[in-house]
């Protein structure tokens, strides 16, 4: 302990003082960093203009609209059944989940309800969309932090789920499967056992990913404590889904809203994490994927027989009125505010997409973070550009 001589100590203090002086004197010039519009972490074309002081972000501005397709206007010139084709493309990684709330809103206005079997299949498809979507996230977040392996696993195992969706609906990415009062088709023969198999694979995948990333020093160092969102701030920005559950808010629309879908019949758990950082968001999504596979297994076991389509007129006219329907989509709360005036199509359809609100917190969240953390934060928020620029 006493080996440090007085001279050495003085030299050390002088060095520290010099450093401090340099830091004060060297006013570094601010720099503007342009991220995107094309960047792997943005899942589409999103541009972020960050003003930097050294390595720290002073201010970040998000520029979106590169992919805005004007769906709210286009729905006004489509008939109700035709709208599902459009809204499939909002969150393209979980297309079926986009169709459901719109159909529910139309059913609410028409006062029809799909038969139990259709509701079960809807819920199964909904959860499969969630698995297909989040599977990709779990792998991709790894690759954005420098771990290459998970993304290959993700694309391999997501394919099993996409194959199932394709087998039942005919569309791998854009099923267009939900109908007012029911579904397009029943499940094909052998689908149930195939799905059980695939769910096992997905669970294995989740275990592998947990082995690979959780506890990995680099992964933990880069995600723990990065991009912390306090619950009240998150809610006031309208964050939903896993992003808000990772901040300790125990809120899941599958449990907490009136929905004709069958989540209430199942035995499952809403996962939350108290930390609110990037790691928590990753962790919650990983658990939710596993939970979803269990839900699918339960639903397949309890699948009722019966018709898959309620009686509706061939030419669908929706009575005048307003309806709001929302569901817990993979990225968060997705809702449609549908106004009908008794015609063939909606007069106004406000699309409330989850990623829009989830991304609106980015300018707040990026203040004061370091440049490498931008990527961590963006990928942990997990937005789909089609869901922002709908």
């Amino acid at each position, binding site marked *: 302990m006493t080996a440090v001589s007085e001279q050495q100590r003085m030299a050390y203090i002088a060095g520290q003082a010099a450093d401090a002086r340099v830091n004060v004197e060297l006013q570094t010039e601010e720099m503007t960093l342009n991220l995107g519009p094309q960047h792997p972490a943005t899942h589409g074309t999103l541009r972020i203009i960050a003003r930097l002081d050294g390595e720290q972000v002073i201010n970040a501005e998000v520029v979106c*609209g590169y992919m*805005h397709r*004007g769906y*709210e*206007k*286009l729905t*006004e*010139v*489509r*008939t109700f*059944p*035709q709208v599902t084709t459009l809204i499939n493309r909002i969150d393209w990684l979980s297309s079926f989940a986009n169709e459901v709330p719109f159909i529910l809103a139309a059913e*609410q206005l028409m*006062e029809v*309800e799909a038969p139990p079997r259709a509701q079960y299949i809807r819920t199964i498809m909904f959860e499969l969309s969630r698995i297909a979507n989040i599977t990709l996230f779990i792998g991709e977040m790894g690759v954005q932090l420098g771990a290459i392996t998970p993304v290959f696993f993700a694309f391999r195992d997501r394919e099993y789920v996409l194959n199932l969706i394709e087998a039942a609906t005919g569309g791998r990415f854009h099923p267009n499967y939900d109908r007012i009062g029911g579904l397009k*088709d*029943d*499940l094909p023969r052998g*689908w149930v056992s195939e799905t059980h198999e695939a769910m096992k694979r997905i669970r294995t995948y989740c275990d592998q990913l947990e082995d690979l990333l959780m506890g990995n020093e680099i992964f933990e160092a880069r995600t723990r404590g990065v991009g912390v969102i306090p619950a009240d701030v998150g*809610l*006031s*920005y*309208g964050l*939903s889904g896993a992003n808000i559950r990772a901040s300790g*808010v125990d*809120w899941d629309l599958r449990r*907490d809203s*009136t929905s004709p879908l069958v989540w*209430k019949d199942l035995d499952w758990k809403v996962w939350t994490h108290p930390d609110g950082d990037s790691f928590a968001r990753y962790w919650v999504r990983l658990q939710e994927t596993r939970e979803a596979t269990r839900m699918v297994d339960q639903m397949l076991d309890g699948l009722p*027989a019966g*018709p*898959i*389509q309620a*009686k*509706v*007129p*061939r*030419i669908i*006219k929706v*009575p*005048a*009125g*307003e309806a*709001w329907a929302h569901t817990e989509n993979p990225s968060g709360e997705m*809702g449609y*505010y549908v*106004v009908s*005036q*008794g*015609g*063939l*199509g909606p*007069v*106004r359809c*406000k699309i409330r997409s989850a990623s*829009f*609100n989830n991304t*609106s*917190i980015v300018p707040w969240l990026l203040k004061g973070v370091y440049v490498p953390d931008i990527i961590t934060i963006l990928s942990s928020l997990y937005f789909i550009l089609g869901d922002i*620029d709908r």
Partner: protein
Amino acid sequence: MSRLSSAEPPAGDATEGTADDERAAAGATDEPAAAAATDEPAAVAATDDTGDATPGPLPDGPPVDDGRLVVLDALTAELGAHLVTTETHRDDIWVRVTAKGWKRAAEVCRSLGFDYFCFLSGLDWMPSVSVMRGEVTSEVAEGETDEAEAVEQAEAAYPAAAGAEPDSAETGSAGTQPDGETGTWKTGHAGGDTRFQVFARLYSIERHIGLTLKADLDDDAPAVETWSQVYPGADWHERETWEMFGFDFIGHPHLVHLYLPGEFEGFPLRKDFPLLAREVKPWPGLVDVEPMPGTEEDATPEQVSEQG
């Protein structure tokens, strides 16, 4: 897309004068119409309840206690004259406030525990020129003479429409009939007196109550105070509403284009903004709504009951 200056279609002017009285009448009959809708035995219809009645328990929903009434009482007390109408429907509340009370309403809601900001957007109640609003287009009707007949059959097979007559909708205004192209200016929950309305949805995580706020805006210069100081999430939504509807949000810190390029002219989501592609060529998908030849009588789709 286009840089068209939005030309006012004749439909807008024609209905301007007459629509006012009719709208006032529609607003007044809100309550009885909602009550009339409950004669449907289906479970969905049972969830409807009228404005001031005690909300009954919803079938398999989260328990609806008097939470909504507590909220309504508090809102009435706090907002006073700024509160125009309220309506409860399913597990949600619709509240219409004056444009002046818009920001105050947000502050009150925030203090009442509505911590989650869902969305904010606009509504344009101008009767739209869209073919989707009322009857099918004349071209389709001409091409297919038994169109009206097919629609009638379809409606006969459809229990809700057949049973509930024109008032099956909450608004209670006439014109839900297929021939209801009467020019009635129909508005939604909690009514409305002007062409433009701003509306937003909030949610209380604790109470599990959704609240939709609406405010009537001036036809010529629609403007309200910004919410972005109360709910920071409103920032982007207001920017979107500003560029899509042309509503001004007074006090917004950064009211610039969000989606559209900076030089864009016009407000795309207003009803008088033409969708150019459809002006040039009618929507080809309309053929989908023509009846299929030969199978007029069975209006139900085939019912599959295959065990998976």
